C-alpha cells in the first residue's frame, strides 16, 4: 500500500497557474476531478483503456488515469474545459454538436481532446487516419461514424483560410 503524503502541486491548467493540494496516491485524473474540480475529465476505466480521461500534458495526449498527480508539478495541462473561448465553442466542439457525434456524451471530452491533439499533428487526416488515432477512445453509443464526420468537418473548417 502506497503511503499517503500531502503534496502541494502547481501547474498551468488551461492557461492558468493553479496550485492544489493532492494526495501522493492520486492519479492526475483523481487530482483534476476531485482536487481541482475539473469534472469534465471523465473516468471510464481508470486503467488506460477507454480514453474518457484524455488530457493534453505538456503538448502530449495522455490518459490522465495513467499519470500520477505527483508528476505534473510545473507541467502544462489542457482539458476539455479549456477548449472554448469567450468568443464561442472551438470548431471541434461545434462540429460534434452539429454532426450529432454524441449521444450520452460521457466519452465526448476524451474524444475532443484526442481529436484536438490529432488535428494539431495532422490537420488533414484521412478517415482511416482518424479512426486509427481515435482507437484509444471508446464510445459505446454512436458506432463512431458521426464522430469521424465531426472530426473531418472541424478539420476542414480549421484548414479554411481565416477571414
Amino acid at each position: 500500500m502506497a503511503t499517503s503524503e500531502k503534496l502541494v502541486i502547481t501547474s498551468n491548467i488551461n492557461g492558468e497557474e493553479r496550485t492544489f493540494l493532492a494526495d501522493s496516491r492520486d492519479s492526475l485524473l483523481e487530482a483534476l476531478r476531485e482536487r481541482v474540480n475539473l469534472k469534465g475529465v471523465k473516468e471510464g476505466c481508470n486503467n488506460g483503456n477507454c480514453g474518457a480521461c484524455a488530457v493534453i500534458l505538456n503538448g502530449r495526449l495522455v490518459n490522465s488515469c495513467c499519470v500520477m498527480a505527483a508528476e505534473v508539478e510545473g507541467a502544462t495541462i489542457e482539458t476539455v474545459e479549456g477548449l472554448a473561448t469567450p468568443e464561442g465553442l472551438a470548431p471541434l466542439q461545434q462540429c460534434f454538436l452539429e454532426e450529432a457525434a454524441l449521444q450520452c456524451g460521457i466519452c465526448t471530452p476524451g474524444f475532443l481532446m484526442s481529436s484536438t491533439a490529432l488535428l494539431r499533428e495532422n490537420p488533414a487526416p484521412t478517415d482511416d487516419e482518424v479512426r486509427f488515432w481515435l482507437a484509444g477512445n471508446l464510445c459505446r453509443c454512436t458506432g463512431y461514424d458521426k464522430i469521424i464526420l465531426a472530426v473531418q468537418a472541424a478539420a476542414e473548417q480549421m484548414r479554411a483560410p481565416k477571414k
Partner: protein
Amino acid sequence: MVATPEKPAYKVIGTRPVRPDGVDKVTGRAAYGADVVLEGMLFGSILRAPHAHARIKRIDTSKALALPGVKAVVTNADFPAQESGTLDLGEGSANPKWLVDNVLAGDKTLYHGHAVAAVAATDWHIAEEALGLIEVEYEPLPFVIDVREAMLGTAPILHHDLRTNVRARGVDTPKDRETNIAMHMRIEKGDIAAGFAEADIVIEREFTTSQFHQGYIEPQNGTAYWNQDGQITVWTSTQGSFSVRDQMAALLAQPVAKIKVVPMEIGGGFGGKIPVYLEPVAAILSKKTGRPVKMWMPREAVFQATGPTSATWNRVKIGAKKDGTLVAADLELCYAAGAYPGSAVGAGVLCALAPYNLANQRIDGYDVVTNTPKTAAYRAPGAPASEYAVEAVVDEIARALDIDPMEMRLKNAPEEGTTGSTGAPWPRIGAKAVITAIKESPHYNSELQGEDVGRGVALGFWFNGGMESSSSAMVNPDGSISLILGSTDIGGTRASLAMQLAESLGVSYEDIKPQVVDTDSVGYTAVTGGSRTTFAGGWVAYELGQEIRKRLVERAARIWGVEPSAVTYGDNGVITGMDKDGKAQQFTFDEICKRLPSTGGHIAVSVTSRKNTTGPAYAGHIADVKVDRETGKVTVLRYTAVQDVGTAIHPAYVEGQIQGGAAQGIGMALQEEYWYDDQGRLRNGSFLDYRMPVANDLPPIEVILVEVPNPGHPYGVRGVGEAPIVPPMAAIRNALRDAIGVNFYHTPVTPTRILDELLPRE
C-alpha cells in the same frame, strides 16, 4: 430515406437541430452522477467476493472501522429484512429479497465479485485501504456457470427455496425438488407435427451465445444523503429515476414520500442502469454517518457485478417447403439469469419467430440461475440470442434450397393482420418494406470482390415499449415554453420530445426549453428503455400541445368576447377568429403569450399518460466480411442497416441509434465475451480484455431509414434504439458461411474459433 406516401408535411419533425444539453456536454460542464460534490461528503467503496459460490461464515469489520478516516462499515445485516415479493422495475421486475442480497450478499455470495461489505471514509484512498482490513471467512461451495449444466438434477443449487415443476423434452424437475430452473414457459400455435410433416426440408441446430456486457463508458455511481428528518435524497445516473425511487423505498423499507431521486446526466445504460447497486448502500452509509456518501464503481466491478446479458443455449428446428415457405418451427431456449432469477428469456421467446409468418410453432423457454452476475436488460433484452439462432437456420434453409435469402424472407414476411407467436394479429408493421428496401439497396446489389469474402443478411425484430410517461409545460410571456420531463435523457430525448411539442403547437424548436427533473417535480415516468421514450414521451408532448392549444383558444375567446368554438388555432401557431363586433382578429403565438399575465394569468399544464399503441420495429442488416486465413481476423468491409423507424423525429439521432446498436451487435458477433477460469472467476473484467469495438474495428455503418408510420402515435413514432442490435450476430455469421464455407454455432466468432475451423482442413 424510404417514406410511405401518407407522411404529412411536418415543420419541425424530420429536421436535425442541435440538442439543448449539447453545449454543456462538449464543454465538460454537464454534471453526471460521479460529478456530484456535496459539503462534508464521504466516499464509499465495496468489498467483493473472491469465489464463484461461497457461504459467508464470519465478517469482522473491526480493524477496518479502526482505520483513521473510516466512518462506517455496513453489510447486508444493516438493511431491513426483506420478504419475497415482486417489484416492478419498468423493464423487468425483481424480488426485493433477491435485490437486497445482490446489493450486499446475505448468507452466501453467488458469483465472483458479489458485493459483501461497504465502507465510507473521508477519502476514497482510505475507503479502499479499509476494504483490505475487513476479514471475511468463506466456505467455498461447488458452483455452476454453464446454463445447460445448471439445469441438470445433479447441479450445485444456488437457491434452496427455488422450485419449478417442469416436464418437457428431457427436462424433468419434480415440484418437490430443488432446482436452478426458475421458470419455464411455452407458447404454441398451430400443429407442429402436421407442419413438419408438410416440410420438404427440416434443419435442426444448436447454438450458444456468450455473456455480453452493455459496456456503457460511465461506471455505475450513486450519492445519497439521509437527512436528520428522515428525508433521503439520491443523486445518480439512471435510466429511470422513479424506478430507483421505488427500488430504494422497498430496500430501505421507507415510503416513497421520503425519497427524492435526482437524475444526473447518464453516460450510457443500454438497459444496465435500471437496477440499483450502489444507491441503497450509499443511503445506509449516509444514515450511519449523518453525512452524504458518494460511490462509484471501478470498471472491473462493473464487469463482475452489474448486469451483463444472459449466456444462452438454443435449439432451433425449422421446416420448409421446396419453394421456401416455412411450415413449422420448434424452439428450445435456455437463458442463464445469473445469480438471481429473471433473465430476458420471455422476450427471447416472443421475438424469436416474429420476423416470420409461421403457422405452426412451439417455443419452450427456460430461466436458469447460475453462479454469474445477475443479468440486466441489454438493448432488446433477450431478442438477439434467439433471433440469431433462427436467422442462422433460415439462412441454411435458403442455401440448401438455393433461394435468395431476402427472397425467402419476403415470402414468409408477416404483415398487418397476420399473427405472431402468441396468435395476436400484428398492427401495421414494416417487415415487407424493410426487406424490399434491402433488396433494392445499392449494397445488396453490389458485387463482392476478392478472396475469402462473403455477404450475409439477417432480420431483427423488437416490440418497442409503451408504459407511463409524464411531463409538464409552462407557457412563458415571451412565447417560450418550459418543458419538464420525467424521462432521463441518454441520447437526445430532450430534443426529440421538444421537437414533438413544437410540432404540435406550430412553434419553433428553439422556443421549447426542455429540462429533466427529479422525482418530486414531475409525474411518474417509467424508465428510458425499451425504445419507449420518444414514443411515449412524444404522446405526452402531443397531449400537452393539445391542452395548451385549447387554453390559448379559450384565452383568445375571452379577450375577443366570443365563444371558444368561434376561435381557431392554426398549425402555424396563429390564432384567428372574430371579436364580438364581428371584426376579424388574430394573435400570433408570441402575441397571445405576451397577453397572458394581464388577461387571467400564465398557463401551465401537466399530462400523465400510458399508451399501449406501440408500433413494433423491423430491421434488416447486410454485412460483407473478409477472413484472413493466417490470423483468423475478420474485417467487416461494408455494413448496411435498414430499419422501419415509423417516423424519424430527429433523423441524425435515429441514425446514431441504429449505428450504435449495430456496432454493439458487431462486437457480440466477433469479439466480446466473458471468460471464466476453472474456479468460476471472471478473468477479463477490463476494457482491454473485454474487447468492445473501437473506431478502426468498424467500417462506416450505412443506414437506410424506412418510414412506415405507427398508426398508434400522433406522429407515427415507433421507437428505434433496440432493433438494430438484433441482426448483426446472424448477419455476420451468415457472411462468414458465405466467405469460408463454415457454419458457426457459437458467438462471438473470434479469430481463435475461425482458426479452429480452418486449420485442420488446410
